[in-house]
């Protein structure tokens, strides 16, 4: 693990009407090479935090830094090193898979040789190479998810942010994604992802953050948090302590 903070969230809060806080004083750090799992109940504030991190959602309180750049003040610098995979990717349905990948590669200014190599590699791994010439509207949910993952990996991001990435993926694709995450983490990429599947988080992550009602109720390394128990037990314990 490197000691470079790739994602720093400092006292981030997000309020909606009537002062209701979807995220309340959230602070966490993901270092380069970390795989950080972000877990919590439905509506706990995971997606709200993730969408603020990737510059989609506006916020008023706190600060979010990516690779030392502020999401508020230097959004483009942050987005250039980040990749985001939403839980339900809304892609351009009337483009073909390859047209969409080329669009993203163009946005990140990826050379023809590099994009060719990466698209081949990841499309083969996810077994959708032969489908790339079809319109995205003809894809299944899982295939769209795979395409969104490939488009996120195409520029070799320093920070990979994923919202429930395993939902809709078949077992083989889930395994492939986990392998890719390990590979990227070894190369120094920081990964921050939300999940409900605690078994996956336990096997994959070296760091865990638990959020409830918009507030972080527990965080630390996997070892610190579990202390000989399973992550499921640690989660339920943290959850019951907060009641």
């Amino acid at each position, binding site marked *: 693990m490197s000691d470079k903070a790739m994602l720093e969230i400092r006292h981030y809060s997000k309020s909606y009407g*009537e002062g209701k806080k979807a995220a309340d004083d959230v602070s966490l750090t993901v270092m380069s090479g970390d795989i950080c799992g972000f877990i919590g109940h439905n509506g706990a504030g995971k997606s709200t935090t993730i969408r603020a991190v990737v510059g989609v*959602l506006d916020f008023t309180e706190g600060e979010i830094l990516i690779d030392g750049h502020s999401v508020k003040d230097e959004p*483009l610098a942050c987005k250039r090193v980040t990749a985001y995979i939403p839980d339900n990717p809304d892609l351009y349905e009337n483009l073909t898979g390859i047209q969409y990948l080329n669009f993203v590669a163009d*946005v990140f200014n990826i050379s023809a040789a590099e994009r060719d190599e990466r698209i081949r590699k990841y499309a083969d791994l996810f077994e959708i190479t032969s489908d790339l010439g079809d319109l995205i509207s003809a894809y299944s949910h899982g295939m769209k998810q795979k395409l969104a993952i490939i488009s996120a990996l195409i520029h070799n991001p320093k920070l990979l942010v994923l919202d429930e990435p395993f939902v809709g993926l078949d077992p083989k694709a889930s395994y492939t994604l986990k392998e890719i995450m390990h590979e990227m983490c070894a190369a120094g990429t920081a990964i921050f992802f939300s999940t409900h599947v605690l078994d996956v988080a336990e096997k994959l992550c070296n760091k865990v953050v638990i959020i409830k009602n918009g507030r972080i109720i527990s965080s630390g390394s996997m070892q610190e948090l579990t202390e000989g128990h399973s992550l499921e037990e640690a989660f339920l314990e943290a959850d019951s302590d907060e009641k």
Partner: protein
Amino acid sequence: MKNEILLLKTLLLSTSGRNIMKYGRDKKKRRKILWGMIGTGILYALLIGVCAVMCFGYGTFGMIDSAPVLCALMISAMAFVFTLFKTNGYLFNFREYDMLMSLPFASKTVAGCKFLYMYVKSLPWYLCISLAMLAGYGWFARPHFLIYPVWVLLSFFLPVIPMLAASFLGFLAARISAGFRKTNIVQTVLSFTFALLCFFMRFFIEKLIKDDQVEMMLSRVSDATDSAAGFYFPARWFARAVTKGSPLDILLLVGVSALLFAVVFRIVGSSYRNINSALKSHAAAKKYKMTAQRQSSVLHAIAFKELKRMTGSTVYMTNGAMGFVLAVLIGVLVLVLGLDRIVSTVTNGAPIDTGMLQPAIPFIVYFFTGMYATTASSPSLEGKNYWIVQSLPIEKKTLYRGKMLFNMCLGVPSMIISTICLCISAKVPLPNAALYLILGFALCAFSTAWGCVCGVRHMRLDWENDVEVVKQGAAVTIYILPNLFVAMGLVVLAVILGMRMDHRLLALAAILLVSALAALCYRWVMALAKE
């Protein structure tokens, strides 16, 4: 600049029928797109024909010098109105917002490209008007050959300023509503207000001109258009550029358009994320207490679902409910100000006996209540949620009946209010008023059923944005355009026939005819439900 071009190119490609034709495997879908293209081509040809005839009329009566101003005003008015109703769906709260904003694009780039996308998509309509009028102008005025390229070049800039003005109004509505908890409702109310203000603006402007005692100004159409150019500078710049070849006016039109674009999207970009955050994210109140539930019929449940679909979308609300709101407003205005005064304002003081208009009252009301049928867009608006109704134990005919019930629930009350107001103001005898109400009901039933025929026959579920269905869908276009012309024609026909035959007899005949047409359309919908 590279990113702007790339994004615009992708936005256009992502909604291009040609891409689907080239890569899609669904033959039915490809055939639909082909027919859609042919239909659009026919509409372009119709528009060219109408503009050419208009220009020919100007030329025949020796008023060809007014053609450039008329061309500029027509394009500007169309661009303003169309953009005003589309801007909320295109610029804000669109489906792929998260995907786009997570890529390294500046907010102003995304907003600017969305505007340019809107511009490119509507440009063919404006070019049809412009080129048809250029042909007429060239035929009658025989201008210098350099005027042709200048006219064509400036045609690309003419819609920009009104589109920017409409987008800015949409931005203001979204910006103000972002500060409220009920964002959608505030945005809808503000959009309605802006649209209605623009609708009535014409009369205020004419009033101002009249108060200035400009003699005989409205006695000739060409004078009216020329005077309009007096306060709408882009039309004046265009007219001077193409009639006098003035380089200053060319520069003014091009320069001001470009400058305004830069300024507007710098302002829009600064609040873009804030607005979209407010529009796309909603707090869960978590306050609900379980109470006794009520059972309602399937039809009511579907109609209620339609209501929530409408109130949840500013674009749908402003387009779908505008006619009904206008009907009520016109009715109340007529009641308060008097039919004589309103008719005098609309016809610029033409000596029209309001008694003549009595038989046309149901059709005047229908002009507004039938302006848009929610049934034309609601089948397509199911979109990706279509699986919900498909997987439920509901017959298609029940689903369509529910959709028709919803449109009737919107149309009939507004028709009743408007008709009663107009009848009181026009001093229509009670039996005649009762017949007009029945006729109004029959017209509502017809527009609902005919809208549903269009909506079902041209159902399209694979859209990216509400606007594609609500404003630009084939079903809506096929419903709106002919219906608009027929409604206007019926008003004139009712006035003419009303002068020659008994009003009650005329109303009875119309009731029978319209009811038969409504029944026919309803049967058609039921037949489509079986397919």
